[in-house]
């Protein structure tokens, strides 16, 4: 029997979402964690991707490059734009056909819309927004189970969830929680075209119009430099200063939940447990106290600089470097010195 | 939605100690009572040290204790602590008269007690409307016939309105029952912390035999850094409540911040060990009206009665406020009932409210203690010199081993007179006596 570890390959009009690659990486880790069981039982384990869309063959090829052995591809004009019902029915059909052991979906807007419906349709367990996934023993159960770890209660508690009697064991993961695996352009794998009939009943909802946002260009999750503002800014105007520093460093603007809740900046900029997970090379936290639900979203950044007037602020616990001072003084001075350095080396 | 106007027999503004009591008494006598409370629930805007007094509670509900009220420890030990900057003299009493049955005072938490007290009023038939602010009155022929609230379609009618709005008595002012806003020299800001400490540690540190014993302490001296005010300590079941209250003008003049006072108190060498390893559970502040008789508004007018903090009904020295509020609330409720029987809601008819309070401790004590808050302000030596002197005097007395006692007494005497000439000290004591006797 083949043990299937599935990843939903999310795509938006022919472009694969990077989270799919990240999850393929995770799925391969999970497979390696059951190597001992496979040896003992003689079974095989595979990482496979599920792709639903229309005219998206290139995405299937792309997904193979990130570690999928096989892609199950459902193509139909009905799938051109994401809609909950047809996608849910298609995935349910495939799950019932192939009976995967594990099914991972990215916790994007689309993924969170889709995963709950699929899990309910199949009547299995789903753990959302996981920060850690591994195959491990649970009680006296023979086979290892998917141990899905996620922060709870705003990040104050780390809980590990299992789904012991139902398959597939499902989990959603926010983008950038896991690293992108290395892309192998030479990867060889199968693409299997699966047929699925979309009935008119499934198309009760239709896309009428799509309007892009100016925040489309934000791409917070994959930015290399992020400068974030929080409650310490005091008002929305403070984000002008944050933007200045971000521009100076070649980065984008992020925000804590407090600033978004205060209406100072759009939710698209929110970093944290209920916002975006980021892991830039440089993260600058300005006037952010560092509540756990924010920390959870940025603590994997390579280098973290925090600026805060309170030397006891929790943000300093996850930072690489901290400056204790007023951001309205420190940031202009920092910009000044950075420009001077640029000028000197120009 | 009903377009009939909202009409009740009595409207009570505020579901605190006074308001819920007035409502309960009036409802008990069959009147249709609505209590309009601005907080999310009764008690959400209230805060105190503090202790509730049994006499007032059982006066309203004779079976009070059978109802299993949410109370903290009974006050089985009480008195004064005098703090010098590094010393402490305890003058407390326990047993004897204090050990009555039931105990005369219980430590309580307003966030738990007020909702319960309001529920008792609801059980009598009162209707409580929370999350709604009364911000004005409805008039007919110059008489109050109801209130306006901040909600759409928010007019409510009643021939008698009992104002129990608390220390920030904007409605009382609006009616012209008092001609000024709250005065900073007559209003104290009290700040406190509740520090969670295991019950057995509280017992060990304060010398209480078990969880059924508790303390209510008035703290004088270093706690207010020479400003007119007092500190306090109350024992809850698993926490200590420590705080200090100082008049607003003293805070303004001195530039000292309230949390600085509190922090200093908690760090005092005799206090710090009591709260060692405790967890700060709660931090809050509230205004206390301390003008008493001098800032008391007119207590009634056509269609209106005023009770509780809104009427400055507080005796600061004796920490009496909640019982005054309950007692006045009861009398206001009874007065409203009588007015309905007579069908007369005029000022003259309602004036019996003031008469009744004059027969009770409420107005009698307010009159007697009318000079007390001014006294404290004009005699700062009671906040610094005398507590320090008491510490020094007793300290020296009890460590005078081997000293010729004549010299010892001279030294003790000088420790007073070097700070305050004797005749002035005597004058102070007389002034203190006068301020509490009321002459």
């Amino acid at each position, binding site marked *: 029997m083949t043990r299937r570890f599935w990843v939903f390959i999310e795509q938006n009009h022919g472009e694969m979402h990077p989270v799919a690659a990240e999850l393929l990486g995770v799925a391969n880790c999970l497979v390696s964690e059951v190597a001992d069981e496979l040896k003992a039982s003689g079974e095989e384990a595979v990482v496979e991707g599920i792709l639903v869309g229309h005219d998206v063959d290139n995405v299937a090829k792309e997904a193979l490059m990130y570690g999928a052995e096989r892609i199950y591809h459902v193509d139909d004009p009905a799938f051109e734009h994401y809609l909950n019902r047809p996608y849910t029915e298609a995935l349910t059909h495939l799950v019932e056909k192939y009976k995967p052991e594990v099914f991972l979906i990215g916790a994007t807007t689309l993924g969170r819309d889709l995963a709950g419906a699929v899990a309910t349709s199949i009547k299995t367990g789903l753990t959302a927004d996981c920060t850690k996934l591994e195959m491990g023993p649970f009680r006296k159960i023979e086979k290892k189970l998917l141990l899905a770890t996620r922060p709870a209660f705003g990040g104050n508690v780390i809980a590990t969830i299992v789904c012991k009697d139902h398959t597939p064991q499902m989990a959603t993961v926010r983008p950038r929680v896991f690293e992108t695996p290395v892309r192998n352009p030479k990867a060889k794998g199968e693409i299997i075209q699966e047929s699925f009939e979309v009935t008119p009943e499934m198309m009760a909802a239709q896309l009428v119009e799509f309007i892009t946002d100016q925040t489309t260009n934000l791409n917070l999750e994959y930015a290399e430099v992020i400068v974030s503002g929080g409650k310490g800014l005091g008002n929305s105007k403070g984000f002008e200063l944050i933007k200045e520093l971000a521009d100076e460093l070649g980065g984008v603007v992020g925000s804590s939940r407090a600033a978004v809740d205060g209406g100072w900046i759009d939710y698209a900029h929110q970093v944290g447990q209920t916002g975006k997970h980021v892991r830039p090379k440089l993260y600058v936290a300005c006037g952010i106290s560092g509540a756990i639900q924010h920390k959870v979203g940025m603590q994997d950044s390579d280098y973290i600089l925090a600026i805060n007037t309170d030397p006891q602020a929790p943000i300093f616990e996850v930072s690489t470097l901290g400056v204790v*001072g007023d951001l309205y003084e420190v940031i202009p001075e920092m910009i000044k010195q950075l420009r001077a350095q640029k000028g000197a080396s120009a | 939605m009903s377009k009939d106007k909202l009409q009740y027999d009595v409207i009570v503004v505020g579901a605190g100690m006074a308001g819920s009591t007035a409502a309960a008494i009036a409802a008990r006598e069959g009147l249709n009572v609505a209590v309009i409370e601005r907080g999310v629930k009764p008690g959400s805007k209230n805060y105190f040290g503090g202790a509730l007094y049994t006499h007032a509670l059982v006066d309203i509900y004779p079976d009070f204790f059978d109802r299993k009220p949410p109370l903290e420890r009974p006050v089985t030990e009480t008195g004064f602590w005098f703090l010098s900057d590094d010393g402490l003299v305890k003058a407390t009493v326990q047993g004897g008269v204090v050990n009555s049955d039931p105990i005369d005072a219980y430590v309580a938490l307003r966030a738990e007690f007020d909702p319960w007290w309001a529920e008792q009023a609801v059980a009598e038939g009162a209707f409580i409307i929370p999350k709604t602010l009364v911000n004005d009155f409805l008039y007919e022929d110059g008489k109050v016939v109801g209130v306006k609230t901040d909600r759409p379609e928010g007019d409510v009618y009643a021939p008698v309105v009992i104002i129990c709005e608390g220390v920030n008595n904007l409605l009382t002012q609006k009616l012209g029952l008092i001609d000024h806003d709250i005065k900073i020299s007559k209003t104290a800001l009290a700040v406190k912390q509740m520090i969670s400490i295991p019950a057995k540690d509280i017992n060990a540190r304060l010398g209480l035999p078990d969880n059924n014993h508790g303390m209510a302490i008035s703290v004088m001296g270093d706690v207010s850094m020479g400003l007119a005010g007092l500190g306090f300590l109350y024992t809850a079941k698993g926490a200590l409540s420590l705080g200090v209250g100082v008049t607003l003008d003293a805070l303004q003049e001195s530039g000292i911040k309230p949390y600085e006072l509190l922090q200093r108190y908690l760090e005092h060498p005799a206090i710090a060990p009591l709260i060692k390893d405790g967890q700060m559970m709660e931090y809050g502040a509230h205004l206390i009206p301390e003008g008493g008789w001098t800032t008391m508004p007119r207590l009634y007018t056509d269609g209106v009665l005023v009770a509780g903090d809104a009427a400055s009904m507080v005796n600061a020295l004796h920490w009496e406020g909640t019982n005054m509020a309950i007692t006045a609330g009861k009398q206001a409720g009874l007065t409203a009932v009588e007015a309905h029987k007579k069908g007369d809601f005029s000022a003259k008819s309602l004036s019996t409210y003031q008469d009744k309070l004059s027969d009770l401790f409420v107005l009698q004590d307010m009159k007697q203690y009318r000079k007390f808050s001014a006294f404290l302000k004009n005699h700062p030596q009671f906040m610094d010199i005398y507590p320090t002197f008491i510490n020094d005097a007793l300290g020296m007395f009890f460590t005078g081993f081997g000293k010729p006692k004549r010299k010892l007494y001279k030294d003790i005497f000088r420790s007073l007179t070097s700070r305050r000439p004797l005749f002035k000290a005597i004058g102070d004591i007389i002034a203190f006596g006068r301020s509490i006797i009321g002459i």
Partner: protein
Amino acid sequence: MIHLLVSVKQVPDTTNIRIDPETGSMIRKGVPAILNPYDAHAVASAAEWKKKLGGKLTVVTMGPPAAEEALQECIEMGADRAVLISDRAFAGSDTLATSYVLAEAIRKIDQEDHIDLVFFGKQAIDGDTAQVGPGVAIRLGLPLVTYAVEIQDVNEEEGFALIVRKTESGKEIIKTKLPAAITAEKAIADIPYASLPDLITSLKYKPEVWSAQEPVAYDIDQVGLGGSPTMVAKSGSPEAHEPAETISVEENGLAGAVKAALEKMLSNTSVAALLEDQQ
């Protein structure tokens, strides 16, 4: 007459959570229970449309008896009927079991009076999974539109609604046949300040209480712990980090502190390379 239904949840106010270091569980004492904020906005939106179109608004919740308070808030905002589905048998339900309980209750209500649009809040602030809305929708066979920020139109006669949905890349306008289900963002409607008569009505209103047997006979194997495929294997506190090296402006002066900070940052090769790319 249009019939709208909102499914709500009473949650602890998680913005100020404290965890008991000994038991690892949340200290519930002193933490107020509130109507889930996203659900509140969903109710506000439903109430607006009920008034606009002339119709009825029902709210349901699965919860303990205390959840009555959350339902009262919904009546205050304009709901006409509130149903509390409460039974010990439901305790320990994960999202699959919860969606079963709610779906069957909604099905029952629909039998008596056809429902045109079911609202959910985007997610509950305690669980944050956003799974129940989609779960109920699929069980009831309803088309689902999540992350709704605006309802442009509800046309009862022709049987469709126009919903604006917000995604990472922009806004979608979805036309869906009715009946349908939506999950709402806060932007969908402002919470109104209820009129005094509405508030009084809500204070006097007693929600209907449904059990696991009446009026819906639930399959016990699909509710509670027994009906929940997922369970908590373990929980604990997050790992501690090594604290940052801090430079104080007070001690070093503004220029000095920033200079020292930049020096430290540039001594990290990765950051230096990044900043060099900016030159």
